[in-house]
């Protein structure tokens, strides 16, 4: 009875899903799916290598400090970094005094100690990075209705986030001349338009990005360590910095992993030999083509 009902139910589901398959296949075969510009001309992030890559990666503190400078002087005009504390700058290799000075260079919201009204004050290490806009409505109003995302986790919130940020910052192109593998965007999709107020960037999923190119001229930031501030360099540095903000424990995580892994390998090898020892008396052994039995478990005193 169970089997009869089971077969019936199974056949019903199978019939319905195969019906859907036939309809789907018919649609697929008859209806032309027109390719979209987003599909054909979207680029995967360009590969780049960083010192923190790989299982043995470490932070390049000079690079993180340069990236912090780019964030501070360029990105922070529109993008917040809410989850990062100013005290965390100490992890970039700044001394305590430098952290205090850096913190004080940020203006954070506070209250007037006498009247209690909202005011501002210089930041202290216990503050978090201040946001450029008081709320999302203000952020949208100031940016053509597009809220600039918080950057704290941006490199974890995108596939290949570090390379994505770097590619995006350096990826602005002219849509009229843009081509991939010899195919020109304007020839394949003559109707493709970048609306006013948006900017063409093939690394952005829908190709038109609200953010204007933030890194426009080499030397936009003057690096204290004398590194040549090319656009490529600034983009690389800030993407490294944003990798740190997204996961400050990244290097520590990998460095913790090795001893744990080493210990587990050691323990597992021991466990393997222990298992072999325990099982040796009851394991059958093949010898000279014939199968020979060994003692049965009862013989063996564990």
């Amino acid at each position, binding site marked *: 009875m*169970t*089997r009869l009902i*089971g*077969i019936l*139910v*199974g*056949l019903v*589901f*199978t019939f*319905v*899903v*195969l*019906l*859907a*398959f036939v*309809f*789907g296949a018919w649609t*697929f075969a008859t209806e032309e*799916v027109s390719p979209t510009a987003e599909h054909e001309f979207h680029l995967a992030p360009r590969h780049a290598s960083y010192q923190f890559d790989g*299982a043995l990666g470490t932070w390049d503190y000079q690079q993180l400090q340069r990236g912090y400078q780019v964030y501070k002087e360029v990105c922070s005009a529109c993008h917040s970094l809410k*989850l990062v504390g100013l005290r*965390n700058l100490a992890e970039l290799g700044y001394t305590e005094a430098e952290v205090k000075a850096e913190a004080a260079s940020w203006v954070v919201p506070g209250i007037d100690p006498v009247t209690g009204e909202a005011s501002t004050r210089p930041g202290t290490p216990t503050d978090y990075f201040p946001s450029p806009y008081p709320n999302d409505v203000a952020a949208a109003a100031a940016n053509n209705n597009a809220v600039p995302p*918080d950057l*704290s*986790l941006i490199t*974890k*919130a*995108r*596939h290949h*986030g570090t390379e994505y940020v770097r590619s995006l910052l350096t990826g602005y192109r002219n849509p009229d001349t843009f081509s991939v593998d010899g195919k020109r965007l304007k020839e394949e999709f003559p109707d493709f338009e970048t609306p006013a107020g948006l900017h063409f960037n093939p690394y952005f999923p829908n190709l038109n990005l609200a953010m204007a190119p933030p890194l426009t001229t080499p030397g936009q930031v003057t690096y204290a360590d004398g590194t040549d501030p090319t656009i490529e360099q600034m983009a690389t540095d800030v993407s490294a910095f944003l990798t740190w903000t*997204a*996961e*400050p*424990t990244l290097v*520590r*995580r*990998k460095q*913790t*992993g090795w001893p*744990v*892994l080493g210990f*587990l*390998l050691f*323990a*597992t090898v021991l*466990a*393997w030999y*222990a*298992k072999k*020892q*325990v*099982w040796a008396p*009851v394991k*059958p052994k093949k010898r000279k083509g014939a*199968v020979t*039995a060994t003692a*049965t*478990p*009862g013989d063996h005193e*564990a």
Partner: protein
Amino acid sequence: MSFPWAKAYEPKAPLMRFLDERLPLPRFVYNAVGAGYPVPRNLSYFWNFGILAGFCLVLQIVTGVVLAMHYSANALVAFNSVEHIMRDVNWGWMLRYAHANGASFFFVVVYIHIFRGLFYSSYKAPREMIWLLGVVIFLLMMATAFMGYVLPWGQMSFWGAKVITGLFGAIPLVGEPLQIWLLGGYAPDNAALNRFYSLHFLLPFVIAGVVILHIWALHIPGSSNPTGVEVKSESDTVPFHPYYTAKDGFGLGVFLIIYTLFVFFLPNALGHPDNYIPANPLSTPAHIVPEWYFWPFYAILRAFTSDFLLPAKLWGVLAMFSAILCWFFLPWLDRSPVRSGHYRPLFRKFFLFGLIPCMAVLFWCGGAPAEEPYVMLSQIATAYYFLHFLVILPIVSLVERPEPLPYSITDAVLGTPADDGTVKGHMIQGENARPAV
């Protein structure tokens, strides 16, 4: 427990004797996973996954309780409290990655455990109750994992909660009120987050309770084994301790090495980047997918795209739930007298070349965007899924001629040479006579 030759617990130390007379906990452990539990001597490494699943449950409860000390279940701060754990709490990053990846590894282990049971027909008499309790555990795990994924309150959390509770909206008449009741609102918000948190904390302990029943039921007939032949004599078994404690110890080591690789070197490989974006009720991610362990069932849900008598959405929901619920009936659908797939040529072909590829396709399509050819592939795989469990299994068990079984586990292990030099056996489980030596 169940075999007359099982060693009886004899407390040696005075403290153990004292305890044994008052609260025989050591005796209980001795009989459950100690030397007092005789286990077939021929278990393969596929039999490690039960203990591993138990380990995963403990791992999840321990890391989860600890994370709960720092997490705040409030829609305003939930996302930030998770980042607080990642950044500020001592070892918080490790505990959270251990818990998130622990969930994935729990499912890896449990899927292998389930499919081992399917291949060796571990659901057959007298082990039906073990199997039924196992399916209950799997359902509870899915509920727990789903609610846990909502807690970080990222984009995937929010939209996952919305889409999955939306499934209940497909039920005729009561669907919509039911969905609103489940969420405590019209969209996931504080009410939903808080109840999910409460249940996410509770359910693992319910799972632990059902696991105890699962193991209890296991100890009545004893473990199955790769031949599917029941234990006949003491030489067929070895005591659980030290034989299987040693083997499980090694298996646990291998498991932990792979798990550690993910926790420390690829902690986000099994997650989705969108869940690092705070929940935004006004913007849906471009490509909503559940966690990978739900993909096969998500693919079945999406495979039903045409309204035949019932709305497609309802067909999808019915099929998705039936896909798991049909497992409850396996002991009565598959009536072959032989358990192990090793001795069932036809069943083995359907399992290895039908069910396994079908599951692979469902996994692949469930994680892919809802476009062709993925939908068509998942439709074929879904059709096979239902055919396999509900049609093929009952029919195969009627028409198949099983291969000869070994007389006993000992014979299978030692390869008892019969008169003509081949391993002799008989077809019908339980009726096979001792071959003449």
